[in-house]
């Protein structure tokens, strides 16, 4: 039992160790390394496409991680580093697309759909209200109702 527990513990340890770029040298300064990893999380791996370069084991992703660290040591700010990537690979390399003319539909469509949804609810409510008549039954209608109810009772 103890062996099993320690095995599970070891396996868990190894998974967390593999999470971020196991293969390369990290920056000595932990705050700089944290900044580097924040930037890497925003950059798409061009080989595997739906992973960031932090998560990817592809050789190109490793090269790009090395470049991010180099640029940080060289004193670039975050925009400059992301600019380095987009000038080579386009906006596509950013996992979060920038807000501009080409992506305005992408960014605003959830809001638009939400508004359409509210409008539909509002309109339906209004329709339902206007359908309900508040007038009392006429004597003719009362008679008919009575008749129907009595018929039902006889059966």
């Amino acid at each position, binding site marked *: 039992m103890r062996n099993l527990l320690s095995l599970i513990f070891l396996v868990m340890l190894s998974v967390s160790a593999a999470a971020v770029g196991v293969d390369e040298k990290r920056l000595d300064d932990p705050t700089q390394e944290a900044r580097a990893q924040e930037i890497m999380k925003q950059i798409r791996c*061009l080989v595997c*496409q739906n992973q960031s370069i932090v998560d990817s084991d592809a*050789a*190109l992703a490793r*090269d790009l991680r090395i*470049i991010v660290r180099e640029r940080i040591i060289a004193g670039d700010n975050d925009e400059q580093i992301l600019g380095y990537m987009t000038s*080579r690979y*386009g906006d*596509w390399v950013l996992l979060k697309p920038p807000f501009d003319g080409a992506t305005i539909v992408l960014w605003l469509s959830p809001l638009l759909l939400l508004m359409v949804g509210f409008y539909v609810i509002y309109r339906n409510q209004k329709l339902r209200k206007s359908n309900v008549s508040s007038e009392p039954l006429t004597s003719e209608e009362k008679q008919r109702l009575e008749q129907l109810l009595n018929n039902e009772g006889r059966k």
Partner: protein
Amino acid sequence: MSLNRFIPLAVFCVIAIALYVGLSLNPSNIPSELINDPTPEFSLPVVGGEEVSFSSIDLAAEDGVVIVNFFASWCAPCYVEHPFLMKLKERGYKIYGVAYKDKARDTNRFIAQQGNPYYKIAADEDGRVAIDWGVYGVPETYFIKNGIIRYKHASPILEMEFEDKIVPILEGVDE
């Protein structure tokens, strides 16, 4: 009121068309950022040596169409593409080859076995120049006319695609 009944159908049609178009795009075709730009600045050594094979200055000085092909001996699709590169050479195209992250010995063996379609070959051992070009895999091929990049093709070039897609672009510009 009767028109309202068609709203769901209309919404469905719009979504269906958007999905049909969107899902039929090839996700591995990433548009290049370098189209209509001059080539990035670089200078690369010959395979297995120190002296410069070619640089951005050589490409800028070329008149007419030249081709830059990133390849590697470890890349299986490059073997598929190779016969067509040989054909392009026969047709008089000047192809500059960049051996991407390849050992000199392997590159030389690849060329010896498969034939040499290249006008000049350079070695990009650490792949940094390739990153400057926006290369994300091999083979990738850039078509340059009068020093300006006009078209990029990722994955092997096949003859039909070259004729139908690339030749019109290269003939179309600069009129």
